[in-house]
């Protein structure tokens, strides 16, 4: 059997913000570049980003600069970050945002014609460049149009199954299948950049689309790279909770940045009761003080609704648990009583539309019912900050699939800027690697054959399980046992149950043919979903403290010892069902001058 084969210099898996930005960089250097995406071009999860991209442009508050942004990012990440990534991100984000305008982006403007910036949680100054509440769409369309104008090859609706090495262990390509026909394809590549996004689909309530199955995380692990911080998962405080069919759907933090507040069933602005000591000095103590801040950041301190996302999500969880929740198990987000209908429709048009159409709620008049939803994984492939290189020669990773940049908790708005800063760096890193010359030339065909055999196995069973049943049970189990608040007994149970899921996945029976068969596609997603779930559960069990997006009921405080390392996972065997080893990986030491910036803030 011969499969269609394509050769490229740089192959990019994933066509969201990071993948597209990487493609532009590599293409500008004159290399042969292709993008592979599971969906159509322009549909990646980046379109769902709403509020904006953080960059210390200083257009609204001239006091802002990269040092404040760096400090905010490290504080938000509870100091578990790769400091060098946070530093490069803060320094380079402004230039990356400005360059988008050369490619056609149209951001909202200040009165003097500069890019307008919006307030978000954890950012000291108004810092998010935005277009209403559809900034992700603007980013992906701008990059997509640039990539297309450069004549880049794009393989749409193509699912990569596994990365392939040469005999010396370098990355040499990958094996994939074309969804419309079900035919297998092989790609030879000197360098591969993973830009596959997140993994929220292993949970029941998530803002992620079907694509968020952690393919890149899993493929990197199987290929020999390490995954770090996998236990650090962001539950975004404001997801829709009703109707059930849209539970988990994102409600932008921009609602709070623009004046929206959280209330419990008694009508109280409860966030004032949940200000952690590290944020007390800069957070308002009364509603009067908080309300002055929106118009003038020097007139009062920040409202507690704009604490980092982990803090707000835990507070909402606690209110619901204490019996002060809304009828469908959330709390209320109110902007209708605080801002004019005209303001809300102009600043938050897609939120207005989303609630009106899907929930029958007019947010200019009524409160929204919201609750935490699995939104983002801070953990990911361990990479070098400068080049986005992994420990496997020829393999790079950028965007949500990469780990380290955000530490234990990501600030809102730092994701879109992460994509363009490290997407570019991954493109540069791949080009440098190729120019250095020690690249792979031949693919280990045994790896290709093995991946194809694995993908076809579910057709050959006489009888077996429906992949949708396994997916549903996995989502319920991860939601229940590895959710926002965790405890040892549940995590140990989850780890044991994941072994049972592994056996179930081996027993999948797929019905129908290979052409555009969603059941088969899900069967090929499940191995990655299980690999990611295992790393999350293992990490969550070993990190016996609470930090950022990892909260332990049995260890409710942060522990300084755990603040000195990441938990790093590696695969023993490289198959999806191979055992996973977890080890402590010390944090990079922070240079004195940067440490001083963090000390100042304390």
């Amino acid at each position: 059997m011969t499969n269609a084969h394509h050769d490229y210099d740089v192959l990019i898996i994933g066509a969201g913000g990071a993948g597209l930005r990487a493609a532009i960089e590599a293409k500008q250097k004159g290399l042969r570049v292709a993008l592979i995406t599971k969906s159509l071009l322009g549909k990646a999860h980046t379109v769902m980003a709403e509020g904006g991209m953080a960059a210390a442009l200083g257009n609204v508050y001239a006091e802002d600069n990269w040092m404040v942004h760096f400090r905010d990012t490290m504080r938000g990440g509870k100091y578990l970050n790769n400091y060098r990534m946070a530093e490069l991100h803060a320094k380079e984000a402004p230039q990356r945002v400005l360059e988008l305008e050369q490619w056609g982006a149209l951001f909202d403007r200040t009165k003097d014609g500069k890019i307008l910036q919006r307030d978000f949680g954890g950012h000291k100054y108004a810092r998010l460049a935005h277009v209403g509440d559809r900034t992700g769409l603007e980013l992906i369309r701008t990059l997509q149009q640039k990539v297309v104008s450069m004549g880049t090859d794009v393989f749409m609706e193509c699912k990569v199954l596994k990365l392939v090495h040469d005999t010396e262990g370098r990355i040499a390509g990958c094996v994939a299948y074309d969804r419309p026909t079900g035919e297998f394809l092989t790609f030879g590549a000197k360098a591969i950049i993973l830009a596959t996004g997140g993994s929220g689909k292993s949970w029941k309530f998530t803002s992620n689309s079907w694509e968020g199955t952690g393919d890149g995380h899993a493929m990197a692990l199987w290929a020999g790279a390490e995954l770090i911080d996998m236990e650090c998962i962001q539950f975004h405080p404001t997801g829709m909770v009703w109707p059930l069919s849209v539970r988990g759907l994102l409600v932008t933090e921009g609602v709070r940045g623009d004046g929206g507040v959280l209330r419990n069933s008694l009508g109280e602005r409860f966030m004032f009761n949940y200000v952690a000591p590290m944020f007390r000095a800069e957070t308002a103590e009364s509603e009067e003080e908080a309300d002055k801040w929106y118009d003038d950041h020097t007139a009062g301190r920040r409202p507690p609704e704009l604490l980092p996302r982990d803090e707000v999500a835990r507070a909402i969880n606690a209110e619901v648990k204490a019996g002060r929740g809304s009828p469908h198990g959330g709390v209320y987000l109110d902007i209708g009583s605080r801002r004019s209908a005209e303001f809300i429709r102009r600043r938050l048009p897609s939120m207005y539309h989303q609630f009106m159409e899907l929930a029958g709620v007019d947010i200019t008049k009524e409160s929204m019912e919201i609750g935490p939803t699995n939104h983002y994984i801070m953990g990911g492939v361990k990479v070098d900050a400068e080049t986005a290189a992994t420990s496997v020669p020829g393999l790079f990773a950028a965007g949500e699939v990469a780990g380290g940049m955000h530490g234990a908790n990501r600030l809102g708005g730092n994701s879109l800027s992460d994509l363009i800063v490290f997407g570019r760096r991954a493109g540069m890193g791949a080009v440098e690697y190729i120019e250095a010359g020690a690249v792979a030339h031949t693919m280990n065909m045994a790896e290709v054959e093995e991946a194809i055999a694995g993908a076809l196995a579910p057709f050959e069973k006489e009888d077996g399980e429906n992949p949708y049943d396994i997916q549903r049970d996995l989502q319920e189990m991860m939601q229940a046992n590895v959710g926002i608040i965790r405890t040892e007994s549940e995590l140990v149970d989850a780890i044991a149950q994941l072994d049972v899921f592994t056996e179930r996945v081996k027993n999948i029976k797929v019905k129908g043919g290979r052409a555009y068969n969603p059941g088969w596609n899900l069967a090929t997603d499940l191995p990655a979903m299980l690999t990611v779930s295992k790393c999350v559960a293992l990490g969550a069990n070993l990190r016996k403290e609470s930090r950022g997006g990892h909260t332990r009921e049995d260890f409710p405080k942060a522990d300084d010892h755990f603040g000195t390392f990441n938990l790093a996972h590696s695969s023993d065997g490289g198959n999806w069902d191979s055992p996973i080893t977890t080890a402590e990986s010390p944090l990079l030491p922070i240079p004195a001058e940067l440490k001083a910036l963090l000390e100042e803030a304390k």
Partner: protein
Amino acid sequence: MTDVTLRVWRGDASGGDFENYTTTQNEGEVVLDLIHRIQATEAPDLACRWNCKAGKCGSCAAEINGKPRLMCMTRMDQLPEGPVTVTPMKTFPIIRDLVTDVSFNYRMAEKVPALLPPPMPEGGYRMFQEDVERGQEFRKCIECFMCQDVCHVIRDHEDNKLNYAGPRFFIRYAELEMHPLDTNDRRDFIREDAGLGYCNITKCCTEVCPEGIHITDNAIIPLKERVVDAHYDPVAWLGRKIRRKTKVSTAAAAVQPAP
């Protein structure tokens, strides 16, 4: 919770037929929820596209009771009682079931002459809200391609696909033509290669746009005035020369240093 029947078209390029599925419908559910329930139970190989399930990505366009709609934004309780018919978009070739080959649109995207801005000054361009707002309306487009699906120029005449870009790309051209930084001139291209003249402004595209973009009034008609008329009318031709100057001077203003 009630039971409802969906008539879903199933098949591929070689042909197909409707299949009836009776499934449960819960409060607040949209058509896509029911399609997903059918996939998870009776028909795991039922092909449909979707991504965000929030009306933001434009993947799940199909024809519901004969009208192009996003499946994720069409609430079951707002459809008339009785069976609901779901068919793939008619204008594009079938791949399988509800999935069509929309590559026509990506080919049209490759032909778009890119934005041509002046070099960026230190600290970025200057543009004003009132100048970016016109383009922002068109950049709300989620590329669901329902305007393309409903446009009779290509829905009923396959041959026209060779030299007709369609409403999605007319708003793209309008956006570029109105972009404060653009200095490129696409008017001949829009008339000759994109086939703007074929559009006879029946507004079908505007009616189906899930983003409420005023495709006909705000994009196609101004674009026609700028392009088609200018070609035939010497007075408009003169106006074109003048407007072209205006376009260049707007772009020049965006690179002025801050006052």
